[in-house]
């Protein structure tokens, strides 16, 4: 894979995440290459969303650190932290669009807060982002008036407003029908190809993983860490680990069969 040769943009070092006494992932280390579509996968409750929350600085990890473009987000404060936050955008599982604002206002918000662009410039950039995700006809709609897939696309547009180099997506295809989900995959692929963005995607939707992922890591609840890393197709066909094969081949768990 070309990803091996890529320069790392995110470096996760011996990261332990969990809540209080409960450790979900113990001392995980991995790297995400620049321009890569990197997928974190694993069964429900294995800590993949918590891992992502630690990577974006929302939940402090129990130990370890995360370097984003060389800067440690886990221990950064004030202006330093702000600087790191500007490097990435996040799309949350539910979209997390601001319900009291139209789509255009949602996308405009980060631009208004962070840039000194004139009014016309802000408006144009926001409209262009919405056009990129195919929502240019819905700029004046409120989030609640849109379908789940549209809300997620709008959330991607908002996350991209300031042209970050990394986009974190938390379960982008959760709750979407296969066609909408596949549209979203195409959007991610085209943004990755055309804009060179790096994607970190948390998901467990197999079709989506095979469609977009350059490289995956797989987490497991019992192992409390990474049990596989690499190209999803190769893992599916050659992994020695029965859990990994089971996951990729959608086999039922053997625990109570």
């Amino acid at each position, binding site marked *: 894979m070309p990803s091996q040769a890529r320069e790392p943009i995110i470096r996760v070092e011996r990261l332990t995440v969990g809540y209080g006494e409960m450790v979900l992932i113990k001392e995980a280390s991995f790297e995400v290459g620049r321009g890569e579509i990197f997928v974190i996968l694993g069964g429900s409750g294995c800590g993949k969303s918590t891992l992502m*929350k630690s990577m*974006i*600085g*929302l939940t402090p990890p129990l130990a370890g650190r995360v370097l984003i473009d060389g800067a440690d987000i886990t221990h950064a404060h004030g202006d330093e*932290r*702000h600087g790191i*936050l*500007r490097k*990435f*955008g*996040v799309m*949350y*599982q*539910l979209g*997390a*669009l*601001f*319900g009291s604002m139209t789509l255009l206002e949602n996308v405009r*918000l*980060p631009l208004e*807060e*962070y840039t000194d662009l004139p009014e016309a410039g802000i408006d144009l950039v926001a409209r262009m982002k919405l056009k990129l995700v195919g929502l240019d006809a819905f700029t004046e709609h409120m989030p609640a008036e849109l379908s789940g897939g549209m809300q997620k696309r709008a*959330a991607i547009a*908002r996350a991209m407003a300031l042209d970050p180099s990394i986009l974190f997506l938390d379960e982008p295809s959760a709750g979407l029908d296969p066609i909408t989900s596949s549209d979203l995959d195409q959007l991610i692929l085209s943004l990755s190809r055309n804009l060179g963005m790096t994607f970190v995607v948390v998901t467990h939707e197999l079709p989506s993983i095979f469609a977009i992922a350059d490289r995956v890591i797989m987490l497991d609840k019992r192992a409390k860490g990474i049990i596989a890393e690499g190209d999803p197709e190769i893992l599916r066909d050659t992994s020695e680990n029965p859990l990994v094969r089971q996951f990729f081949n959608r086999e039922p768990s053997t625990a*109570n069969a």
Partner: protein
Amino acid sequence: MRRVHRNDTMHATLTFQDLRPGERTITLRGRLDATSVAALWPQAHAAVEPARVVNIEASQIDYCDGAGLALLFDLRRSKPGAVHINGLRPEFNGLLEQFEPATFPAPSAKTLPARAGFVAEVGRSFARLAEDWKLQIAFLGEAGSALIFAARNPRSVRWKDALLIAERAGVDALPIVALISFLMGLIIAFQSAIPLRQYGGEIYVGDLVGLSMLRELGPLMTAILLAGRSGAAFAAELGTMKVNEEISALTTMGLDPVRFLVVTRVLAGLVVTPILTVFADMVGLIGGAVTMLTFEIPTRTYFTHVGGFANVSDFLSGLAKSVVFGLLIAGIGCLKGLQTRSGAAAVGDSTTRAVVAAIIMIVVVDGLFALIYYMLNL
């Protein structure tokens, strides 16, 4: 010995027979569903209890749902190795075999959470209280620094949002504030005029209503109404945003939720509460005047007494309180909203906490003000 338990309406029966002493055959027939099993459960256990070895003849069970499986499972578990189920149809047997007794501990084996001792419970409550206070003080600091930042950089404040919030919390609250304070004035005047008339002192009702409305009731009633109306609204709004991950989205955008959401609301509260208080004072006094007309005291005389006894410092001291009340209501509403955990019930919980905490703080602070004014001879 042969007995039959039958429940005709449910179409399930249980019979048992002792072939040898200690060896019993139980025959289950019919439809084992939640309704019929409920009736059979104690009978089946009573039948299994005295026997050493039990054979359950299950070939005549026509239907068996989750409740039926649970009954068979529970009987087998009650005497491990001694209960044999024979002839259960393969489709039901396949379901039953999915559950291993080891994975379902018997109810008696379930350990109840140990009851903490009195001392431990008290300690835990204090720790929780201390944690809560720590959060409130930290929030106070954050909100304070955000307000100072806003005062230094007025352009950083989202004035459009603040105005909108002020409109909803202020203008929209006018009817209810007017109604309550009008009735307050009316009732106080009426209740005090009756005893005062016995001494021919109804002329002094204006003094009483004026002082109590301006100093206490105007600010207090307005604050309590606002706590119920806008404090609850702030908590619910921010709580829902928290549940929908909108707060997380703001944080990862590098936008401080306190600066972004709390400052606008606190500013709105600070401006709106005193204005509403002035309005409540006026309407309350008018309410008193209306009552006094029925006691044949002219409005002009009434207002002369209001102005003669209560002075500007009474009015201003009420107004000063209302500014603090506004800060408290908005601040507590926002804090409780931001502290919301996950789920719809958590939003309701935060709203309740916001209203209760705000009303308690209003009353406590009102008492403190009374003390301070007394010491300052105001």
